[in-house]
Each structure stands twice: as C-alpha cells, then as structure tokens.
C-alpha cells in the first residue's frame, strides 16, 4: 500500500472511529455494565452514539459496476464520524449496483483528476474512479470537492464542490453517492433521504416506544416522540417535513401529524373506535386514514385545508391500509371483504373498486412505487409473511424475501429498494431488499426492537 503525505490526517480521522468502535465492542461485551453506565450517563449524553446500528449485507450480487473510491484527502481539524469515502462506498455497495474495489489494490492515491494515472486504474479493472478532498475553510466549516472519472475513456464525468458545516459531512457524502448513482445508472439515487421507525425497549416502568427519524443508512437517529404506549404507522408528508403516525398515548389509537422541524403536532383523528393507517396524498393536501367511527372499519379522506372528511369505502369487511397512487387519482388498500385480506384499488372519489390480488390467502399493506409500476405488499405463503412485489402492468407477483414475520414495506423514493421490518433471533430489525430481490441487507440496532419503518420522499 502506498500512503502519500496528507493521508496521515485522514487516518487520524479514521483512527477516531476505530477507537470509538473499540469502546463499543468493550461495551457490548459488558452489556450489564453498559446498562448501568447508561443509566448514569443518560442525563449526560447529548446525541446518541452514531454506531447504534450495524448494516449487514445478507444477500449480494456477483456483478456490479466496478468502481474505485479513493479516500478523500483531509486538511483540517479532525471531526468525529466516519470518513466520507466509507459512507459513499457503503451506499453504493448497498444498492447492489456497484462493486467497490478494495483500497489495498490501489496503485496510487489521487485526490483530483489531474493526479490520476488512468492506466493504474485500468490495471486493477476499475471502470470508474471517485477522487476528492476535504479542506477546513473556517471554524467548523469545510470545503468538499469530488470528481467522478471514466477510467476507460480517461475523462471526468462530473464534479462538485460543497461549502458546508462539519455536521453536514454525512449528508454531503450521501449526496455524492446520489450523483454517482444517477450518473452511472441513469436513475435518481435515494441515499440522501431519511427513514422513520419505532424502537421498543423494555424498562422497569414498562415498555418505552420511540418514534425516530434517521439518515437512510440508519445514522444520526433523532427521537421525535417518546411514549410508554405503542406507536405505529409512521407516514411521511410528500415534502418530507411532517410525519403522521398512530399513538396509543391516550390508551387508544389516535392519529397525529407532527412537524419535524419544531416537533409541533396536531391530533387529527380521535374518533370512537380505531384511528389508524394515515397516508398523505401525493400533493400533501389530503390524509387518507382508517376509522371505525361508524361501526365498520372504513377508509376516510381528510382534507387538510377544509377539514372535511369523506368516507371512501363502505363494506362490513375490514377495509384498511390505504396508500395513494402516485398520480393522486386513486388508492390501493387492504380489504377483508372476500373473507381474507386482499388488495383492492379505488378511485379517490370512492368509485371503481377493483380487486388487484387473487393469488394466496393473505395479501396486505400495499404501497405503490413513485413511477406507478410496482406495488409492494406483505403476502403469506407456507405460513410465512414475506415481502412481495407486484408488477401493476402484468399483475405478476415476485416474492422478495423468505423470512417469517415481515411487516411494513415501503419503497425508497426511486423505487429501487424496499425497506421493511422483520425478525432476527427474536428481535425486531429493519431490513432492505432491492425491488428485484437480488440484494438484501439488515439494519440491526443495538437498542431494543425496531419496527414500523417508512422511507422518506426526496428531501427538498
């Protein structure tokens, strides 16, 4: 391995991480001590440790686009956190579309296009190359530059410069991943997005439920609600600025809409019976939800401007889990009207009900991709509840997972990945699978059970 001057700084930067990982491992080997320590420290920790989760690729692909990501040069005071190149590499690998070449194979360590010797990269069979630099511009501010190069053609495909706060380094890494992904696959990337989910921990006072929002790779978790009663059904507004969810804090299910910026929230459905399954319309003006206020469990639409409520379904069977079609003209939902849960489509005015699923005895929790071509759902087969995807044009259904208790699937805004909840060793975990089923990964949190994930729309 060749290390050039300037790299020491990168490695001191990474050394910080190694030290932190060691601490983490030590803590893990002493869970009881950790628990005691956490009780003592809980009042002192300002932001939760970033390494609350591990991502494990449980199913990979053989062929991806071979790409080499050279560690960015670092010129400035070290900042806590992972190196940007590690984040970019992890993003691209997780997508299943890329094959990252190990750094040990690199014959040079360039940081800008001018320094690149293309033959060195052709030799190690890299099709594309990412180089960049990070330089401290002021107190807590940094300038990040990166370039994406085509090794075969020997030219630069794109390059960007960002002037940012140190707290935004992770976000910029995800934005760089998005740019690389889009340039090389022709599809928009969804790395610089958020996920919402619920964690459940057992405490001496009973269970503690946290509704959290984190980066798409699970880092930077922030708690937006803390309750001793169950939380479920988080749903993003199309501008990614609000979350609707169901809380049992008043000892029964009620729907709230909470603004993420300041935590302000509003109770929008607290009718008699259940209030559940909120879903924002694609234009953000309406909220579909489920209520049993008139006896049967039906789907309603709340106009968020006029507050008018309109009933959409009318059947003595269970109607629930509404999800809007991307054009806003209709919804898909789960209905028990045939005697078992199946998926139906309905126009936004309540007309034109049509059954979509006929195979199997349990198809539920539908969600349609942003381009309207795919619908993801939970299907039962051989006593297992797994994630399946239906091609809405051909009606063909493909099983994406073979785990037993999968729940709450949602598409990434580009439709290429599906985030869902499942169980591993009696613990709720989040997992993601590519929409073609080729790549699968699990996101394992160190804190309790994790459930009810929802992938955000693109951040604007």
């Amino acid at each position, binding site marked *: 391995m060749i290390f050039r001057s300037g790299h020491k700084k990168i490695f001191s930067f990474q050394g910080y991480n190694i030290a932190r990982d060691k601490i983490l491992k030590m803590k893990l080997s002493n869970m009881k001590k950790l628990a005691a320590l956490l009780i003592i420290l809980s009042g002192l920790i300002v932001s939760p440790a970033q390494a609350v989760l591990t991502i494990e690729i449980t199913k990979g692909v053989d062929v991806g686009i071979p790409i080499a990501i050279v560690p960015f040069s670092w010129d400035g005071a070290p900042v806590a956190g992972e190196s940007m190149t590690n984040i970019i590499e992890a993003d691209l690998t997780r997508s299943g579309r890329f094959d990252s070449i190990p750094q040990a194979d690199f014959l040079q360590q360039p940081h800008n296009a001018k320094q690149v010797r293309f033959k060195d990269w052709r030799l190690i069979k890299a099709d594309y190359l990412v180089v960049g630099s990070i330089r401290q511009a002021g107190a807590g501010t940094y300038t990040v530059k990166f370039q994406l190069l085509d090794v075969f053609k020997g030219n630069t495909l794109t390059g960007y410069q960002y002037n940012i706060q140190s707290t935004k380094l992770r976000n910029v890494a995800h934005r760089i991943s998005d740019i690389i992904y889009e340039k090389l696959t022709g599809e928009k990337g969804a790395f610089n997005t958020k996920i919402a989910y619920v964690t459940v921990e057992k405490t001496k006072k009973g269970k503690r439920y946290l509704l959290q929002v984190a980066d798409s790779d699970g880092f930077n978790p922030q708690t937006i609600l803390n309750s001793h009663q*169950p939380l*479920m*059904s988080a749903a993003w507004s199309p501008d990614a600025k609000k979350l609707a969810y*169901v809380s*049992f804090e008043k*000892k*029964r*299910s009620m729907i709230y809409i909470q603004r993420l910026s300041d935590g302000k929230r509003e109770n929008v459905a607290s009718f008699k*019976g*259940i209030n*559940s*399954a909120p879903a924002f319309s694609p234009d953000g003006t309406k909220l579909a939800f*489920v209520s*049993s206020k008139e*006896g049967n*469990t039906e789907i309603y639409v709340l106009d968020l401007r006029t507050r008018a409520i309109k009933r959409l379904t009318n059947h*003595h069977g*269970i109607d*629930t*889990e509404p999800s809007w079609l991307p054009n806003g003209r209709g919804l898909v939902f*789960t209905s*028990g009207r045939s005697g*078992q*849960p199946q998926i139906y489509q309905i126009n936004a005015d309540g007309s034109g009900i049509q059954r979509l699923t006929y195979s199997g005895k*349990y198809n*539920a*929790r539908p969600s349609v991709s942003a381009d309207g071509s795919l619908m993801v759902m*939970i299907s*039962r087969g051989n006593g297992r*509840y797994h994630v399946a995807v239906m091609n809405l044009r051909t009606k063909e259904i493909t099983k994406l997972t073979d785990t*037993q*208790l999968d*729940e*709450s699937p949602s598409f990434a805004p580009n439709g290429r990945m599906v985030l869902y909840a499942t*169980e591993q060793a*009696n613990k709720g975990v989040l997992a993601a699978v590519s929409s073609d089923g080729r790549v699968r990964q699990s996101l394992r949190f160190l804190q309790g059970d994790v459930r*009810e994930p929802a992938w955000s729309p693109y951040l604007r």
Partner: protein
Amino acid sequence: MNNTSKLILIALLAGMVAVSGCNKKTRKAEGSDMGDGVSTSGTGTEFGPDGKPLGDWQSGASADLLSQTRIYFAYDSSELDVDSMAVAEAHAAFLLNNPSTRVVLEGHADERGTREYNLALGERRAQSVADVFIALGVSAMNIDNVSYGEENPVAEGHDDSSWHLNRRVEIRYDR
C-alpha cells in the same frame, strides 16, 4: 355482601337472562321459549338452529365463567365459539345486574400479518363481544371498545401457543 355471595347471586341471575349469540352477518331471531322465564335464540351458523340450552347452568360453573376475563379467537376470525359465548354470556349477565358498571372490551391480535389489519381485527373482535352483550340487553352506552391490534401481546413467543393466547378480547371493568 362478600364477593362469593355476590358471584353466586350473579350466577343465579345469569340463568334467568335471555341469551342470544349474535354475529353481524347471521343475526337471526329464532327464539325458543324453554319455560321458567328462560329463552334462547340461535345464531344459525355457530350453534345450529336449536340454540344452546342454558337451563341447567350450575351456579359454580357460572362463577367460573365470570372469572374468565379473556375470550379467545381463531386465526383471522372475530367469531365467538361455544366456550367463548358462554364466557360472554356470563359477563353480560353480570352487567345486566350491575347496570351502572361500565366495561371496556379490549381487542387484540397475534403478531402475524400486518399491524393495521390486526388493529382492525382487534376492533372487530371487541365489537363481536359487544354485539353479544348488546343482544343480551346490556346498554351500548356502558360498553367501550378498544383495539390494541398486535401491539400488546400477553405471550411473547413466536409459536402457535403464544399466538392463541394473544388472539383475545380482554373484558375489563371500570371500578
């Protein structure tokens, strides 16, 4: 009055209550007078046309039924079976004799399947029990339904026996 004598009284009164099982789709009023002030009505699909005779209830058996505060259900079902119906009837009798008592019917589901569907299923189970109570004369004003879906299991296992225990309606009295 101590608890035991109260229960015996309730049990005796329970035997005098007109009983009907009820299912939303198959609500039928095929009553048959069995004498001694007791009349039953059948539920069609669940009990057959002859209904379930109640005249030979033992007071002890009824107290035992009243001590059961959980009603269990089959997978993806909100229908009460014969045993569940007997428990529901005993509680309905108690409520009829204690008209100021309010009851909360808390519906639950096992973990399989989706959370929102299970929340609706829990609601439906609570409503099935409420329908029995109301059909037996309990004031709907005194019944509150709550569904927790799969959120509050009593058994944490991932097997048939745990799932059976979790598919339930809990009958809770406001005191």
